[in-house]
């Protein structure tokens, strides 16, 4: 894959605070990359570095094969959409869209044509004469996307563009952004807190923590094979269930925790010459079964339901098993009640094992 954005050994510090540390990232042409991470991990900072809004302390940034490390933001061929929309309050929507083009001294007929095209794509034509204050949240965000769109940029940068919107609108605009990407097929880097946005939009997700990228992979890979315990906990809601214990050999590899032993014959270790060691055993709530289906599961546990959260499409149950609290995702129609004794089961092949000390995947 040809690289559209290439970040080499990027570091950035605010005074004594190192926010980005020796960060490397390659984004392919036309790829939709989502940066996901908890608050303060440096996602916005990375995006601002790519946009040229922050001076980097070290390393290089290439966009479209060109070294833009010292370039002005407007010369980098990017369009950016901000969380707070950042529409110029004193200009109409049309004025907002054309401001950048006027600055670039684009001829007037071409400005009009580009604004009209962007407005058509985003369906904001009736709003062009209005000021931002007279728009709803969703319309404002569309106008802000339009401002990036008219620039005909190769790279779009989104910094949490939907997080100020209500859930319904967020879902609608999410779909629109995905369609926009399919139509324009330019490179997009998208920062979000929202797992669903990340999973649905991304070609690849970069999970960040403390200014580093922990894992860069497709949503499926991140979900199924998280590279570390942090990633495993971060993705998925409710979060993955963990057992603390030890992997022992003899009679095949087994994970033992408390009085339980889970056979690991079917588990795909990263390193086939694995040596027994203390470990974390993680299993997602949706990979657990309860009631009759649990009878056939390779591992079966007895527990008591403590809490039930009916979500309509499915039901979440918190089950207490020997002092462990496990989340189990059940069918939406399941009738379980707090206090019920229940059998839960799972297949260790779908589990995730992490080293006890490094917390890396085994």
């Amino acid at each position, binding site marked *: 894959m040809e690289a559209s954005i290439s970040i080499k050994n990027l570091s950035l510090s605010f005074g004594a605070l190192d926010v980005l540390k020796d960060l490397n990232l390659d984004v392919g042409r036309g790829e939709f990359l989502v940066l996901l991470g908890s608050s303060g991990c440096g996602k916005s900072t990375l995006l*601002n570095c790519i*946009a*040229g*809004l922050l001076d980097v302390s070290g390393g290089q940034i290439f966009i479209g094969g060109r070294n833009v490390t010292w370039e*002005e*933001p*407007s*010369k980098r061929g*990017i*369009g*950016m959409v*901000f*969380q*707070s929309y*950042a*529409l*110029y*309050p*004193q200009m109409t929507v049309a004025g907002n869209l054309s*401001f*950048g083009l006027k*600055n*670039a001294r684009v001829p007037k007929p071409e400005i009009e044509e580009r604004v009209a095209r962007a407005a058509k794509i985003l369906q904001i034509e009736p709003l062009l004469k209005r000021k*931002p*204050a007279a728009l709803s949240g969703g319309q404002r965000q569309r106008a802000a996307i339009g*401002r990036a769109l008219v*620039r005909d940029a190769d790279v779009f940068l989104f910094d949490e563009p939907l997080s100020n919107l209500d859930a319904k609108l967020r879902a609608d605009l999410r779909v629109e952004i995905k369609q926009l990407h399919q139509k324009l097929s330019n490179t997009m880097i998208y920062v979000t807190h929202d797992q669903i946005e990340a999973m649905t939009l991304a070609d690849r997700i970069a999970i960040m923590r403390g200014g580093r990228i922990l894992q860069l992979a497709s949503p499926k890979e991140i979900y199924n094979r998280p590279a570390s315990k942090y990633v495993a906990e971060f993705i998925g809601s409710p979060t993955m269930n963990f057992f603390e214990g030890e992997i022992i050999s003899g009679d095949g590899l087994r994970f033992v925790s408390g009085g339980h032993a889970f056979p690991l014959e079917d588990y795909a270790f990263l390193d086939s010459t694995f040596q027994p060691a203390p470990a974390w055993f993680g299993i997602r709530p949706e990979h657990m079964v309860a009631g009759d289906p649990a009878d056939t599961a390779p591992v079966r546990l007895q527990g008591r339901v403590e809490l039930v959260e009916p979500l309509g499409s499915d039901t979440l149950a918190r089950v207490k098993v020997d002092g462990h609290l496990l989340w189990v995702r059940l069918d939406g129609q399941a009738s379980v009640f707090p206090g019920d004794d229940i059998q839960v089961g799972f297949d260790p092949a779908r589990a995730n094992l992490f080293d006890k000390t490094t917390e890396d995947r085994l």
Partner: protein
Amino acid sequence: MTKTPHLLKNSLKYRAEAGAAGGDVSLRLAEVPSEAARVENGPAGRKPRKVLSRRNIIVYGTLIVVCLYYLLPLYVMIVTSLKGMPEIRIGNIFSPPLEVTFQPWVKAWAEACTGLNCDGLSRGFFNSVRILIPSVILSIVIASVNGYALANWRFKGADTFFTILIVGAFIPYQVMLYPLVIMLREIGLYGSLTGLVIVHTIFGMPILTLLFRNYFASVPQELFKAARVDGAGFWRIYFRIMVPMSLPIFVVAMILQVTGIWNDFLFGVVYTKPDLYPMTVQLNNIVNSTQGVKEYNVNMAATILTGLVPLTVYFISGKLFVRGIAAGAVKG
């Protein structure tokens, strides 16, 4: 629960009545109990307020006393300025004029004598205008660009510069008075209006820069970033984005400067010559001139005339001023 029997009784009664009326539907509809019928005894609707509560007496009482305190001198001034000297000599300063005369006003404006000349306040007025307009414009323009640069373009040494500026605001005027005289003399501007304009601009700088910096710093950073991505430079962002959304703070700065510079006395005396004295100095010289009798009516008229400019500014921009201060809370 107490309301159920009552409702029941009501509805029973309606049915009886409806039957008596021969089941007329429209009549029955008209008699369906309205919401009001559901209201029980006890507090309901708007809470009544006593007009003569203790709180009201204290609040309005205080306000009236304060108003009198401020308005009484003004009343005395206006009344006195409309009297002739014989009437003033009678000595009752509160009585309204028996014979209204505008002569004192004319005299104050055009004929009153200082120790040096006899063309009244008019000379000072035009001097003041010639000082005021360039000083206000110059100081606001420079301070707003300063504040913008400090808030948004964190250039090297910005913090040091800002600290120096703020410290400057706390240095007493008296310390700088004489050094400035020397400096102005060296560049040949001592005693000229230009010199005074420069002095006003310098002394307005710390507080105005602080005002603008804080306002611009409260403008969302993302707006500024968006403009940079859109390829706007220093001046384009300033003129096209920052200034249009900062009208309120410009009005606030203008009011501060107009009243401050118009009311200035010290710099006017120190840095100009007698024929260039601003209105305040001229007023002082008229009121304190020792020739002849004290013309209280002329003095009063002169004082009111001098205060008229700030007063007008307050009246015209008062609304904008309040809006400007409140606008800080409104997001773009």
